[in-house]
């Protein structure tokens, strides 16, 4: 436990430093390519892309943990999936919000339904909200199993959301179509690293909470048996 606490604070400090560094670099060092729009809101991309990456990553973890749970039936994997799903929903919310802000600044509206990327990402968000709803709706032994099944089904929407701007009609920008200076790539990479650490730290905290809840559950059961 002691080591766990120290590792958590180490993670949080790393996270903070990485975030500050990202803020500094993306604001003052980023070289903005000649873009067909007012470039100032371009800074948002250094956050938006890493956030979206983290969202996909956490749902990938939910998927992997769900498969692992069905294979091994170890409660640990169920707890991993549950923790990662919640962090993922938070990240997707942030991705939707940051994308929405950019859209308002550049295109004049916060949201449009006629856009595949926005629509699929919203559905992705909904799928994992539904996952959490399923988790609260089912009690007992069946919960982990059913959640694992839905955790696998809902992963369908991750590639759908990721590739939607390439496959379907979308206003979503495809960065590969613009001249992208090297330094931006480095900053973006740092952003991805920073937000991955952010994810790991949040996941760790949430996972510890899940362990404690499981402990309380077993203590409760033991008490009920004795009385």
């Amino acid at each position, binding site marked *: 436990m002691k080591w766990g606490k120290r590792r958590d604070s180490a993670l949080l400090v790393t996270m903070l430093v990485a975030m500050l560094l990202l803020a500094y670099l993306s604001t003052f060092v980023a070289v903005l390519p000649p873009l067909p729009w007012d470039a100032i809101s371009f800074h948002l991309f250094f956050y938006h892309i890493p956030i979206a990456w983290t969202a996909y990553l956490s749902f990938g973890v939910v998927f992997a943990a769900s498969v692992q749970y069905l294979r091994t039936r170890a409660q640990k994997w169920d707890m991993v999936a549950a923790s990662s799903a919640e962090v993922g929903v938070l990240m997707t919310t942030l991705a939707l919000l940051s994308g929405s802000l950019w859209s308002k600044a550049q295109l004049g509206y916060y949201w449009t339904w006629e856009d595949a990327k926005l629509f699929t990402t919203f559905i992705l968000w909904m799928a994992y909200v539904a996952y959490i709803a*399923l988790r609260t*709706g089912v*009690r007992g032994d069946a919960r982990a199993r059913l959640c694992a099944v839905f955790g696998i*089904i809902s992963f*369908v929407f991750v590639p759908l959301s990721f590739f939607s701007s390439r496959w379907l009609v979308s206003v979503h920008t495809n960065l590969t179509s613009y001249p992208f200076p090297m330094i931006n790539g480095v900053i973006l990479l740092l952003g991805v690293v920073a937000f991955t650490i952010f994810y790991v730290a949040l996941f760790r905290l949430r996972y510890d909470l899940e362990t404690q809840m499981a402990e309380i559950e077993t203590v409760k059961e033991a008490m009920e048996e004795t009385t």
Partner: protein
Amino acid sequence: MISEALAVAWKDFRLELRTRERLSSMIIFSIMVMLSFRFAFSFFGVHAEDPVLSASLVPPMLWIAFFFAGMLGLAPVFAKETDTGTLNGLLLAPTDRFAIYLGKFMTSLFFIFLVSLASIVFFAIFFNYDYAGQWIGIAGVTLLGTAAYASIGVTVSALASTAKTRDVLLPLLLITVTLFTVVVPSINATSSILMNDYETALTNIRYVAAFILISFVLSYFLFDEVLED
């Protein structure tokens, strides 16, 4: 496996013939929805000849009816088995669980498609609308769309059936899983057919067909886990 699936389907079908609970509630619901639309969009009754207006208005109205009537059809698929305690008997049957899925899929598709066809007819009667003569195309897209809907709907229904909050959970899970993958492409395909744009229709039909394949594969691997007890 097919004969076992047919046995499950035939059991559900006979049960329905005796009680007529599912089908009657679905049909009544579909009439109610169409009546509500008739009053809400009464202006459309006058402008039904306008091809652009009808192509954008008719498919969503139809699919709202299909979706929610279909949900009424999917809700009792396993909930009823759980409530009457017959699920264990079904699980004890010496067969692959996927056969149970297939059987349930067949009856669900049959009922949902039947009610959807009825909804199409109700709509035509209430709005005095002739679907620009594209009856067969509309029915075909409806068959494909409801097949996709039922294929994932049976698994989702099984997922939700054990939950205490299943009445809320089933709509939430179903809307999430089918909105973008089934409902939207089906609506697009229907409206393209009404506009005589077969190329767009084919693209959307391909999406739906691909999703049927995906949901069959998912169900093949996961259905066993859902029902395991």
